[in-house]
Protein backbone atom coordinates (compact mmCIF):
# COMPACT_ATOMS: atom_id res chain seq x y z
CA UNK A 1 0.00 0.00 0.00
CA UNK A 2 1.12 3.54 -0.65
CA UNK A 3 1.49 5.58 2.57
CA UNK A 4 -1.01 8.41 2.95
CA UNK A 5 1.50 11.37 2.76
CA UNK A 6 3.04 10.00 -0.43
CA UNK A 7 -0.44 9.50 -1.84
CA UNK A 8 -1.20 13.19 -1.25
CA UNK A 9 2.10 14.32 -2.82
CA UNK A 10 1.48 12.18 -5.89
CA UNK A 11 -2.09 13.43 -6.17
CA UNK A 12 -0.86 17.02 -6.19
CA UNK A 13 1.72 16.10 -8.85
CA UNK A 14 -0.96 14.57 -11.08
CA UNK A 15 -3.21 17.59 -10.59
CA UNK A 16 -0.31 19.87 -11.62
CA UNK A 17 0.23 17.64 -14.65
CA UNK A 18 -3.39 18.12 -15.72
CA UNK A 19 -3.25 21.86 -15.06
CA UNK A 20 -0.17 22.20 -17.30
CA UNK A 21 -1.85 20.27 -20.12
CA UNK A 22 -5.08 22.26 -19.78
CA UNK A 23 -3.08 25.50 -19.72
CA UNK A 24 -1.34 24.60 -22.98
CA UNK A 25 -4.65 23.53 -24.49
CA UNK A 26 -6.28 26.79 -23.46
CA UNK A 27 -3.42 28.80 -24.97
CA UNK A 28 -3.80 26.68 -28.13
CA UNK A 29 -0.18 25.60 -27.92
CA UNK A 30 -1.23 21.96 -28.09
CA UNK A 31 -3.63 20.29 -30.46
CA UNK A 32 -6.25 18.32 -28.47
CA UNK A 33 -5.87 15.39 -30.86
CA UNK A 34 -2.24 14.89 -29.83
CA UNK A 35 -2.94 15.55 -26.15
CA UNK A 36 -5.45 12.74 -25.68
CA UNK A 37 -2.68 10.20 -25.04
CA UNK A 38 -1.15 12.48 -22.38
CA UNK A 39 -4.51 12.92 -20.71
CA UNK A 40 -5.02 9.15 -20.77
CA UNK A 41 -1.62 8.74 -19.12
CA UNK A 42 -2.69 11.17 -16.38
CA UNK A 43 -5.89 9.24 -15.74
CA UNK A 44 -3.92 5.97 -15.45
CA UNK A 45 -1.49 7.61 -13.02
CA UNK A 46 -4.36 8.93 -10.93
CA UNK A 47 -5.99 5.50 -10.74
CA UNK A 48 -2.72 3.86 -9.73
CA UNK A 49 -2.18 6.28 -6.83
CA UNK A 50 -5.44 5.20 -5.19
CA UNK A 51 -5.60 1.59 -6.37
CA UNK A 52 -1.97 0.40 -6.44
CA UNK A 53 -3.13 -3.21 -6.08
CA UNK A 54 -4.37 -2.99 -9.70
CA UNK A 55 -0.77 -2.51 -10.79
CA UNK A 56 0.38 -5.37 -8.60
CA UNK A 57 -2.26 -7.69 -9.99
CA UNK A 58 -1.43 -6.63 -13.55
CA UNK A 59 2.29 -7.25 -12.95
CA UNK A 60 1.59 -10.72 -11.54
CA UNK A 61 -0.59 -11.45 -14.53
CA UNK A 62 2.34 -10.69 -16.83
CA UNK A 63 4.63 -12.84 -14.69
CA UNK A 64 6.59 -9.93 -13.15
CA UNK A 65 7.51 -10.64 -9.52
CA UNK A 66 8.67 -7.21 -8.37
CA UNK A 67 6.15 -4.40 -8.14
CA UNK A 68 8.67 -1.70 -8.96
CA UNK A 69 9.84 -3.54 -12.08
CA UNK A 70 6.22 -3.81 -13.16
CA UNK A 71 5.83 -0.07 -12.78
CA UNK A 72 9.00 0.68 -14.75
CA UNK A 73 8.09 -1.67 -17.57
CA UNK A 74 4.66 -0.09 -17.80
CA UNK A 75 6.15 3.42 -17.86
CA UNK A 76 8.74 2.56 -20.49
CA UNK A 77 6.14 0.86 -22.68
CA UNK A 78 3.93 3.90 -22.43
CA UNK A 79 6.75 6.32 -23.28
CA UNK A 80 7.81 4.18 -26.25
CA UNK A 81 4.24 4.23 -27.50
CA UNK A 82 4.06 8.01 -27.27
CA UNK A 83 7.40 8.39 -29.03
CA UNK A 84 6.26 6.15 -31.85
CA UNK A 85 3.08 8.20 -32.20
CA UNK A 86 5.25 11.31 -32.42
CA UNK A 87 7.42 9.77 -35.14
CA UNK A 88 4.29 8.86 -37.05
CA UNK A 89 3.03 12.44 -36.74
CA UNK A 90 6.38 13.83 -37.91
CA UNK A 91 6.39 11.48 -40.90
CA UNK A 92 2.89 12.42 -41.89
CA UNK A 93 3.70 16.09 -41.61
CA UNK A 94 6.84 15.62 -43.68
CA UNK A 95 4.73 14.07 -46.43
CA UNK A 96 2.28 16.94 -46.31
CA UNK A 97 5.06 19.54 -46.37
CA UNK A 98 6.62 17.79 -49.33
CA UNK A 99 3.38 17.96 -51.29
CA UNK A 100 2.94 21.61 -50.33
CA UNK A 101 6.43 22.53 -51.52
CA UNK A 102 5.82 20.75 -54.80
CA UNK A 103 2.48 22.46 -55.36
CA UNK A 104 3.96 25.86 -54.48
CA UNK A 105 6.74 25.39 -57.01
CA UNK A 106 4.20 24.62 -59.73
CA UNK A 107 2.05 27.61 -58.77
CA UNK A 108 5.12 29.84 -58.72
CA UNK A 109 5.95 28.76 -62.27
CA UNK A 110 2.41 29.56 -63.44
CA UNK A 111 2.45 32.96 -61.76
CA UNK A 112 5.86 33.75 -63.21
CA UNK A 113 4.68 32.83 -66.71
CA UNK A 114 1.41 34.75 -66.38
CA UNK A 115 3.30 37.81 -65.19
CA UNK A 116 5.75 37.69 -68.04
CA UNK A 117 2.87 37.20 -70.52
CA UNK A 118 1.03 40.16 -68.99
CA UNK A 119 4.24 42.18 -69.23
CA UNK A 120 4.58 41.33 -72.92
CA UNK A 121 0.96 42.33 -73.63
CA UNK A 122 1.43 45.69 -71.93
CA UNK A 123 4.56 46.27 -73.97
CA UNK A 124 2.67 45.62 -77.18
CA UNK A 125 -0.17 47.98 -76.27
CA UNK A 126 2.25 50.82 -75.70
Amino acid at each position, binding site marked *: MIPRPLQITLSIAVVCYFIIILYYLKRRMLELKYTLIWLAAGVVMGIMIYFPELLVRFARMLGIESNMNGLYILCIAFILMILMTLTAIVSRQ*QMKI*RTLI*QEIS*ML*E*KRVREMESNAGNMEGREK
Partner: protein
Amino acid sequence: MARVLIIIPAYNEAGNIEKVIDDLTTNYPQYDYVIVNDGSTDATKEICRENHYHVLHLPVNLGIGGAVQTGYRYAWENDYDLAVQIDGDGQHDVSFLQDMIAYMDEQGADCVIGSRFVRKEGFQSSGLRRTGIQFLSILGFILTGVRVRDITSGYRLVNRKLIRVFALDYPADYPEPEAMVIAAVYGGRIKEYPVVMRERENGTSSINLKRSVYYMVKVTLAMLIRRLSFGVRRQK
Protein backbone atom coordinates in the same frame (compact mmCIF):
# COMPACT_ATOMS: atom_id res chain seq x y z
CA MET B 1 3.64 12.38 -81.86
CA ALA B 2 3.82 11.71 -78.16
CA ARG B 3 4.46 14.67 -75.91
CA VAL B 4 7.65 14.06 -74.01
CA LEU B 5 8.79 15.87 -70.88
CA ILE B 6 12.39 15.70 -69.75
CA ILE B 7 12.67 16.12 -65.98
CA ILE B 8 15.98 17.51 -64.79
CA PRO B 9 16.43 17.63 -61.02
CA ALA B 10 19.12 20.15 -60.18
CA TYR B 11 20.71 20.79 -56.80
CA ASN B 12 23.64 23.21 -56.98
CA GLU B 13 24.29 22.47 -60.64
CA ALA B 14 25.25 26.02 -61.64
CA GLY B 15 28.35 24.63 -63.35
CA ASN B 16 26.49 22.14 -65.53
CA ILE B 17 22.96 23.33 -66.07
CA GLU B 18 23.61 25.77 -68.93
CA LYS B 19 25.43 23.15 -70.96
CA VAL B 20 22.71 20.56 -70.38
CA ILE B 21 19.87 22.90 -71.34
CA ASP B 22 21.68 24.43 -74.32
CA ASP B 23 22.26 20.91 -75.64
CA LEU B 24 18.55 20.13 -75.16
CA THR B 25 17.17 23.27 -76.78
CA THR B 26 19.48 23.25 -79.78
CA ASN B 27 19.65 19.53 -80.54
CA TYR B 28 16.35 18.19 -79.22
CA PRO B 29 13.69 20.91 -79.61
CA GLN B 30 11.00 18.21 -80.09
CA TYR B 31 11.10 17.43 -76.35
CA ASP B 32 9.83 19.69 -73.60
CA TYR B 33 11.90 19.92 -70.48
CA VAL B 34 11.52 21.17 -66.94
CA ILE B 35 14.29 21.81 -64.46
CA VAL B 36 13.43 21.15 -60.83
CA ASN B 37 15.66 23.46 -58.84
CA ASP B 38 15.78 21.70 -55.49
CA GLY B 39 16.43 24.72 -53.28
CA SER B 40 19.94 25.24 -54.65
CA THR B 41 22.20 27.53 -52.66
CA ASP B 42 24.44 28.44 -55.58
CA ALA B 43 23.62 30.48 -58.71
CA THR B 44 21.34 27.83 -60.27
CA LYS B 45 18.23 29.95 -59.71
CA GLU B 46 19.77 33.10 -61.19
CA ILE B 47 21.07 31.23 -64.23
CA CYS B 48 17.59 29.83 -64.84
CA ARG B 49 16.02 33.26 -64.50
CA GLU B 50 18.48 35.00 -66.82
CA ASN B 51 18.07 32.39 -69.54
CA HIS B 52 14.28 32.04 -69.12
CA TYR B 53 14.52 28.29 -68.68
CA HIS B 54 11.44 26.23 -67.87
CA VAL B 55 12.03 25.70 -64.21
CA LEU B 56 10.22 24.77 -61.02
CA HIS B 57 11.84 26.35 -57.97
CA LEU B 58 11.37 24.37 -54.77
CA PRO B 59 11.51 26.90 -51.93
CA VAL B 60 13.36 24.44 -49.67
CA ASN B 61 15.53 21.44 -50.42
CA LEU B 62 13.53 18.21 -50.66
CA GLY B 63 16.23 15.82 -51.82
CA ILE B 64 16.40 14.03 -55.15
CA GLY B 65 13.21 12.00 -54.63
CA GLY B 66 11.05 15.00 -53.83
CA ALA B 67 12.54 16.93 -56.74
CA VAL B 68 11.94 14.18 -59.28
CA GLN B 69 8.43 13.66 -57.97
CA THR B 70 7.73 17.35 -58.58
CA GLY B 71 8.63 16.71 -62.20
CA TYR B 72 6.20 13.78 -62.39
CA ARG B 73 3.45 15.88 -60.83
CA TYR B 74 4.14 18.57 -63.39
CA ALA B 75 4.06 15.98 -66.20
CA TRP B 76 0.73 14.65 -64.93
CA GLU B 77 -0.87 18.08 -64.53
CA ASN B 78 0.22 19.09 -68.02
CA ASP B 79 -0.90 15.84 -69.65
CA TYR B 80 2.40 14.60 -70.96
CA ASP B 81 2.39 11.15 -72.56
CA LEU B 82 5.93 10.29 -71.59
CA ALA B 83 8.31 11.57 -68.95
CA VAL B 84 12.01 10.91 -68.75
CA GLN B 85 14.28 11.87 -65.88
CA ILE B 86 17.89 12.70 -66.49
CA ASP B 87 20.50 14.04 -64.11
CA GLY B 88 21.29 17.73 -64.06
CA ASP B 89 25.02 17.12 -64.30
CA GLY B 90 25.14 16.00 -67.92
CA GLN B 91 25.81 12.31 -67.21
CA HIS B 92 22.95 11.17 -69.39
CA ASP B 93 23.07 11.51 -73.14
CA VAL B 94 19.70 12.60 -74.55
CA SER B 95 20.58 11.20 -77.98
CA PHE B 96 19.50 7.76 -76.69
CA LEU B 97 16.02 9.02 -75.89
CA GLN B 98 14.55 8.51 -79.34
CA ASP B 99 15.68 4.89 -79.36
CA MET B 100 14.39 4.39 -75.83
CA ILE B 101 10.95 5.67 -76.88
CA ALA B 102 10.95 3.39 -79.94
CA TYR B 103 12.03 0.48 -77.75
CA MET B 104 9.22 1.26 -75.30
CA ASP B 105 6.63 1.13 -78.09
CA GLU B 106 8.11 -2.02 -79.55
CA GLN B 107 8.21 -3.87 -76.21
CA GLY B 108 4.92 -2.49 -74.88
CA ALA B 109 6.79 -1.40 -71.77
CA ASP B 110 5.67 1.13 -69.18
CA CYS B 111 9.16 1.99 -68.06
CA VAL B 112 12.48 1.90 -69.91
CA ILE B 113 15.62 2.25 -67.83
CA GLY B 114 18.78 3.48 -69.53
CA SER B 115 21.42 0.99 -68.46
CA ARG B 116 25.20 1.12 -68.41
CA PHE B 117 25.59 -2.59 -67.86
CA VAL B 118 23.75 -4.12 -70.78
CA ARG B 119 26.55 -3.45 -73.25
CA LYS B 120 29.19 -2.33 -70.75
CA GLU B 121 30.27 0.76 -72.65
CA GLY B 122 31.26 4.17 -71.34
CA PHE B 123 31.54 5.16 -67.68
CA GLN B 124 31.06 2.05 -65.54
CA SER B 125 31.58 3.30 -61.95
CA SER B 126 33.92 1.67 -59.41
CA GLY B 127 34.11 -2.03 -58.54
CA LEU B 128 32.68 -1.80 -55.02
CA ARG B 129 29.82 0.34 -56.21
CA ARG B 130 29.07 -2.13 -58.99
CA THR B 131 28.91 -4.95 -56.43
CA GLY B 132 26.37 -2.95 -54.45
CA ILE B 133 24.32 -2.30 -57.57
CA GLN B 134 24.44 -6.00 -58.41
CA PHE B 135 23.18 -6.90 -54.94
CA LEU B 136 20.26 -4.47 -55.25
CA SER B 137 19.56 -5.71 -58.74
CA ILE B 138 19.29 -9.31 -57.54
CA LEU B 139 17.16 -8.21 -54.59
CA GLY B 140 14.87 -6.42 -57.03
CA PHE B 141 14.65 -9.60 -59.08
CA ILE B 142 13.75 -11.69 -56.04
CA LEU B 143 11.09 -9.20 -54.98
CA THR B 144 9.49 -8.49 -58.34
CA GLY B 145 10.65 -11.08 -60.85
CA VAL B 146 12.14 -8.37 -63.05
CA ARG B 147 15.88 -8.19 -63.52
CA VAL B 148 17.13 -4.65 -63.94
CA ARG B 149 20.91 -4.70 -64.14
CA ASP B 150 21.47 -0.96 -63.67
CA ILE B 151 18.87 -0.57 -60.94
CA THR B 152 20.36 2.68 -59.61
CA SER B 153 20.31 4.38 -63.00
CA GLY B 154 18.57 7.74 -62.87
CA TYR B 155 17.94 7.70 -66.63
CA ARG B 156 14.34 6.50 -66.85
CA LEU B 157 11.54 6.84 -69.32
CA VAL B 158 7.97 6.19 -68.14
CA ASN B 159 4.54 6.40 -69.72
CA ARG B 160 1.34 8.00 -68.40
CA LYS B 161 0.47 5.04 -66.24
CA LEU B 162 3.67 5.33 -64.24
CA ILE B 163 3.71 9.15 -64.35
CA ARG B 164 0.47 8.90 -62.35
CA VAL B 165 1.91 6.35 -59.95
CA PHE B 166 5.10 8.34 -59.34
CA ALA B 167 3.23 11.64 -59.02
CA LEU B 168 1.38 10.18 -56.04
CA ASP B 169 3.97 7.86 -54.57
CA TYR B 170 7.70 8.34 -54.90
CA PRO B 171 10.42 7.61 -52.36
CA ALA B 172 12.12 10.56 -50.68
CA ASP B 173 15.84 9.83 -50.73
CA TYR B 174 17.94 7.41 -52.80
CA PRO B 175 14.78 6.68 -54.77
CA GLU B 176 15.84 4.72 -57.87
CA PRO B 177 15.82 1.05 -56.75
CA GLU B 178 12.71 1.56 -54.62
CA ALA B 179 10.95 3.36 -57.49
CA MET B 180 11.61 0.31 -59.64
CA VAL B 181 9.86 -1.90 -57.08
CA ILE B 182 6.97 0.59 -56.94
CA ALA B 183 6.67 0.51 -60.73
CA ALA B 184 6.66 -3.30 -60.68
CA VAL B 185 4.09 -3.72 -57.90
CA TYR B 186 1.73 -1.32 -59.67
CA GLY B 187 1.87 -3.63 -62.67
CA GLY B 188 4.34 -1.64 -64.77
CA ARG B 189 6.36 -3.57 -67.34
CA ILE B 190 10.00 -2.60 -66.99
CA LYS B 191 12.63 -2.93 -69.70
CA GLU B 192 16.27 -1.95 -69.89
CA TYR B 193 17.91 -0.24 -72.82
CA PRO B 194 21.67 0.02 -73.26
CA VAL B 195 23.03 3.55 -73.00
CA VAL B 196 26.47 5.02 -72.59
CA MET B 197 26.92 7.34 -69.62
CA ARG B 198 29.47 10.08 -69.29
CA GLU B 199 31.46 10.73 -66.17
CA ARG B 200 30.30 13.91 -64.51
CA GLU B 201 32.45 16.96 -65.15
CA ASN B 202 31.57 19.35 -62.33
CA GLY B 203 30.45 18.61 -58.79
CA THR B 204 30.52 15.29 -56.95
CA SER B 205 28.23 12.30 -56.88
CA SER B 206 25.73 12.41 -54.03
CA ILE B 207 26.88 9.02 -52.74
CA ASN B 208 30.34 8.90 -51.18
CA LEU B 209 31.87 5.90 -49.44
CA LYS B 210 30.84 7.06 -45.97
CA ARG B 211 27.21 7.13 -46.93
CA SER B 212 27.19 3.88 -48.86
CA VAL B 213 26.52 1.70 -45.82
CA TYR B 214 23.54 3.85 -44.91
CA TYR B 215 22.54 3.78 -48.56
CA MET B 216 22.58 -0.02 -48.79
CA VAL B 217 20.70 -0.55 -45.52
CA LYS B 218 18.09 2.09 -46.27
CA VAL B 219 17.49 1.03 -49.86
CA THR B 220 17.36 -2.70 -49.02
CA LEU B 221 14.82 -2.13 -46.25
CA ALA B 222 12.81 0.28 -48.38
CA MET B 223 12.58 -2.27 -51.19
CA LEU B 224 11.54 -5.05 -48.80
CA ILE B 225 8.88 -2.91 -47.15
CA ARG B 226 7.55 -1.80 -50.52
CA ARG B 227 7.14 -5.39 -51.57
CA LEU B 228 5.55 -6.41 -48.27
CA SER B 229 2.98 -3.61 -48.31
CA PHE B 230 1.89 -4.61 -51.79
CA GLY B 231 -0.44 -7.31 -50.49
CA VAL B 232 -2.35 -4.71 -48.51
CA ARG B 233 -2.77 -2.45 -51.51
CA ARG B 234 -3.85 -5.22 -53.85
CA GLN B 235 -6.95 -5.93 -51.76
CA LYS B 236 -8.29 -2.41 -52.26
